[in-house]
Structures are given as C-alpha cells and as structure tokens.
C-alpha cells in the first residue's frame, strides 16, 4: 500500500486510503443491486438459492481477508483458518439446532395429557438431535446451547481461545515458516478427526443440519431470510474490511509487515514478535469464526469434512490467486474462485467434446484449478490484484532477484511495489 506513506498522516482515514472507500462503495452498490434483483425484496431476477450463494461468497471473502492479514501481511501461512471458520459455524449451529428442535419437541409434548417436565423436554431434544449417533443425552459441550447470547459469544471465544493457546505454544517455541504451516495443518487435521467421531458430541460425520431455518421464524419465507443473511454478511465484510484496513494502516501494520520480511530484525528493534503474531493470529481466527457463523446458516449444514485441512489450503489458494498482501486482492480471489468453482462444479459449464474424449468440467475442474494455481504461483505472484496495478500504473522495481526480506513469508521481487 504505497498510498500509506504518500499521504500526510493528519489527513482523515478515508482520504489516506482511497482503496478502502472504493471497496466499501462497490460493496454497498452490490448489496443494493442484489436487494433490488432478489425475490424477497425486489423484482425476483436473482433466485433465492443464488442469493444464498452470493451471501456465502461474501462470508468466504471475509475469511479470505483474515487469511490475507495473517499470511499476506504477517507472513504466517496458516493452514488452520478454515478450522476456525468451521468452529464459528458449529457454535452458531448448536444454538440453531437446539432452539429449533426445542420448538418442535415442545409442540409435540404440548399435545400430551400431562405438561412436560424440564427433564422430558431436554430428553426429547437430545434424542431428536443425537438419535443419529445412537445417543440420547446432551454431551457436556452443549451446556450453553439453549442460549443465543452465550453461543454467539462462543462464535468469537472458541476460535479465539484455540488460536490463542495454539499460537502461544507455536510462537513461543519459534516455529516458523513451513514448519508452522505443517503444524497448523496438523491441528486442523486433529480437529476434523476429532469431530468425525460420534462421541465428539457434535454428531460425528452427520454434522449439524437444518441450520437454514431460524427458530421461531418458520413463517418467514427463505427468500426473506436469505436476504437478511446476505445483508448481515455484507455488513460483516464491510466492517471486517474497515477493521483490517485500520489494523494494517498504522504502525502496527508496519510492524507486522516487517515481521513478515525479517522477523529477527524486528526483534532487535525491541518488538516482542511473538506477541504481535499472537495478536494477529487470534484476531484473524476470531474474524474467521464470525465469517463461519454467518456462512453455515446460509449453507444449512456443517460437517467435519468442511474443516479438513484441504479447505484451509483452498483458502490460501484464493488469497494467492487474488493477490496477497493487499486486502482487496483477498476479496477478489475468494469471490472469483468460489463463484467460478460453483459454476464449474454445478454442471453449468459446457463440456468440451474432443472427439475421442469429452472433458466434463465436473470431473476436470479440480485439475484446472490445481494447474492454474501452479501457474499463478509461478508466473503471477501478484495474482488478479496485480491487474489493478496496471490501471494505477504501479510497477515492480528491478530488485536484481532479491526478495523483500530473508524470511520465508517475505514478499517476492515481483510483488514489491514501486
């Protein structure tokens, strides 16, 4: 962000960061446009399911922002942020599932000759929810599931706490670079394997389902509910973008970018590098948790496969394709790849008939994605965001093959901005 240094510091935030304002304006226009075209509030050009897809995409953009902050700015290639995303989804999913089942159970018990005891209600809910895994009692982790405020707090606290503990352990023993990536991947794998078990208390591989139905609002059609979530996602993305832009704009941003490029040097300046990393890691985990809590009610179902390490690697792929180290790059990457991916895997892309073999995109899209990712890494490290540089005429300087710093997370020569 070269505009950081060029503007005087006494100017208002908005003027110093025109890209933030441009982004927020585009987001607002997009939200307005979708609202007008939606079935719920507008002329009905966009189907409810597509509104959900767009809403989910906004959430993915938000988690990509978090990933960009932790990787693109701080140089920590975390392969665990989709796990935090999933944890946020599980936290809100527990309340959604509990509250909706409670309504159903109360209705069915209301018809009984005797008024139900609290125990009967609880047993009824538990056997409804846990019948699929052969249990009929609430596991201890469901103790707060009845309370929306507590589960909302869990959306933030659970990923945050996990990130805090894990980060504290990892950073204090100076695990960096690929080692840290592998370690975060191991954490993600351990978490998803844990959730795959039936006795994890979260319904094993069945996951939580029926999340698209808001308890007590069963009369409201999905076309309306989907718009609520779309707005909430857009608002969260806007606020998240502002927060991230604020974090990276000042001296804190300077320090974390310095950590990315040359961690040892920052230490000799007297900055407690581990504490900074921990703050960024935890903050982004919380953002990821919030994004997940907004995503899964739109998806309707969450299961442990969503948490598997590969999801987190895809997240890194989005950010890299969009262009790391610039916030709008992360958003562009997540939106572009996930929407294109939906288009290809949804069977809408026309198959290519080669005469001897028909390329069906449902099968070959992953191959294309994998290879295009290799190409982006090799030939276009600035990603799609690099196209913006063509417009605003920023070129990478000739650094004679030197990267920005000695550390593994440092930006490459081609990514440096003049």
């Amino acid at each position, binding site marked *: 962000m*070269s505009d*950081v*240094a*060029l503007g005087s*510091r006494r100017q208002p935030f908005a003027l110093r960061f025109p890209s933030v304002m441009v982004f927020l304006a585009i987001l607002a226009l997009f939200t307005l446009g979708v609202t007008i075209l939606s079935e719920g509030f507008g002329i009905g050009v966009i189907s409810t399911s597509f509104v959900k897809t767009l809403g989910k995409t906004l959430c993915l953009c938000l988690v990509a922002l978090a990933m960009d902050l932790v990787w693109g700015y701080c140089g920590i290639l975390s392969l665990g942020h989709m796990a935090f995303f999933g944890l946020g989804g599980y936290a809100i999913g527990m309340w959604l599932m509990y509250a909706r089942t409670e309504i159903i159970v109360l209705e069915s018990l209301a018809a009984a000759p005797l008024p139900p005891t609290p125990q009967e209600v609880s047993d009824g809910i538990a056997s409804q929810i846990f019948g699929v895994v052969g249990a009929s009692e609430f596991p201890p982790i469901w103790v707060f599931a009845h309370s929306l405020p507590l589960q909302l707090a869990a959306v933030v606290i659970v990923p945050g706490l996990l990130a805090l503990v894990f980060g504290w352990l990892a950073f204090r023993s100076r695990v960096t670079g690929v080692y840290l990536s592998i370690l975060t991947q191991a954490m993600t794998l351990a978490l998803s394997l844990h959730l795959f078990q039936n006795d994890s208390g979260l319904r094993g591989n069945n996951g939580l389902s029926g999340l698209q139905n808001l308890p007590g609002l069963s009369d409201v059609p999905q076309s309306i509910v989907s718009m609520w979530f779309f707005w909430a996602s857009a608002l969260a993305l806007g606020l998240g973008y502002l927060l991230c832009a604020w*974090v990276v704009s*000042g*001296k*804190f941003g*300077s*320090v974390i*970018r*310095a950590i990315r*490029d*040359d961690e*040892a*040097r920052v*230490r*000799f*300046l*007297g*900055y*407690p*590098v581990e*504490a*900074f990393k*921990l*703050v960024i890691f935890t903050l982004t985990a919380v953002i990821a948790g919030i994004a997940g809590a907004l995503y899964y009610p739109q998806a309707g179902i969450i299961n442990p496969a969503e948490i598997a390490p590969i999801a987190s690697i895809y997240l890194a792929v989005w950010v890299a394709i969009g262009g790391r180290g610039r916030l709008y790059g992360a958003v562009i990457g997540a939106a572009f790849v996930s929407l294109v991916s939906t288009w290809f895997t949804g069977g809408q892309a026309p198959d290519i008939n080669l005469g001897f073999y028909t390329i069906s995109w449902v099968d070959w899209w992953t191959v294309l994605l994998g290879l295009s990712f290799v190409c982006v890494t090799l030939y276009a490290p600035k990603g799609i965001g690099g196209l913006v540089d063509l417009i605003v005429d920023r070129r990478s*300087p000739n*650094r004679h093959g030197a990267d*920005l*710093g*000695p550390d593994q997370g440092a*930006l490459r020569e081609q990514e*440096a*901005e*003049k």
Partner: protein
Amino acid sequence: MSTLLEVSGVSVSFDGFKAINNLSFQIADAELRAVIGPNGAGKTTFMDIITGKTKPDEGRVVYGDRGDSLLKMSESKIAQAGIGRKFQRPTVFEDQSVFDNLMMALRKTRGPLAVLFFKPTPEDEDKVAQLASEIGLSAALHRKSGELSHGQKQWLEIGMLLAQDPRLLLVDEPAAGMTPAEREHTTDILREAAKTRAVVVVEHDMEFVRRLNCKVTVLHEGSVLAEGSLDHVTKNEQVIEVYLGR
C-alpha cells in the same frame, strides 16, 4: 565512568567448534570502542551473544546500572533495555518507506496493543524528520527504502539505531561498501553518538578504525588477544602475527 556492559568468561561452541572461548570484555558509558580481528575471530558471534541471538554455553553477561544478566532475556527485551544493533549487511524493511522504518524504530512502548492504538504526535514526526536530515535522507523520506542505494540503506539503518536511542550501540562493519566521503560522515556520526552512549564498532578497515581514534580490542579465535590504543595493539607481536602472518 561506570561499567555499562561486562562480559566475563563466555564460551560457546557449535558442533564442537569453539566460536567464543572464555571471552571477557568491558565497556563503560559513553565510550567508543573498536573491535577488530581476522575472519572467524568470533566478532559476529560476540554480538549475537550480547543481543541474545545466541545463548552461550557458560559465562556471564551483565548490563546496566542494576547489573541485570542479559542471558535470561529475549532479544526484544534486550533491545528494549537499550542495546541497539546494526547488522553487517544493511537490513532495513525494504517494503516500507524511510519514514515508516524510522517511525518503527523510534523509542516508544513496544507492546502490540500500544502499537495498535499508536498515533504519531507532531513531535514524533518532527523527531523522524530531524533524524532523516541527520542521515541525509530528508528528500527520500517517503520513498520505499528498497529503492535506496546501498550506502543510503546503511545510513537508514544507523538512523534507525539512533531513533531507538540506545545506551549501547553495536555496529557491525558500518563502512562496508561506502564511498570515502560517506565513510567520513559515518565516523562523525559514530563519534557524535559516543558522546552520550557506549558504541562498539566491529570493523576490518584499519583506516576507518584509526579515524575513530578510540580504544581497540583485538579478537582472535574467540578470545581477546590485545586491548589498548590502535598504536599499542599494532605493535603487539601476536597481533602482527595473526594479522600479517609469519
């Protein structure tokens, strides 16, 4: 003059190779000291030990008025305690402007939350501008430091050191790759700095050391070979043998 830093009986070995062998060293407040020695004498490892990058196998490193041991402190704590270090190769944050580099180095609270909510005051900006003029980079204040010339990067790094306002400055080969005029300027800055703080300069270049005109410590094979004025040490038989060969 009170002793600012005392290194005594320090040894460290890597895979059996003794890089530092029972080294002892003292420096007082407001003293300028040059450390010379041939390649592999342990000059860089010596600095690594003081700044906490390398933990010695044995020995004591005591610093400051209260006599705190540096061995138990992390690199960042040591830096916060007032020990600044300039590396052999200029290491500035090339992705960021000269202004940002200096602002980052400015002596302020270093905790993450304090940094997050930090807003530079006009005084801070004036301080940065003043430092920039001292190191001759006023015109380049808002340029990316990666675009600076090699010499300018060296200046910037010295400027960052001064911005930290350390009590003890460790400078590793400051004159490497500089033009004679730049060298002269560097000497002036170091001698100016040494009026208010301790400065240790590691240097190969005898001419540069002579111009510093200070006490010299000669390192060889990880321990102190000789100490005294440059003329004194250059007369030392052992030093001659080590430096000039038999």
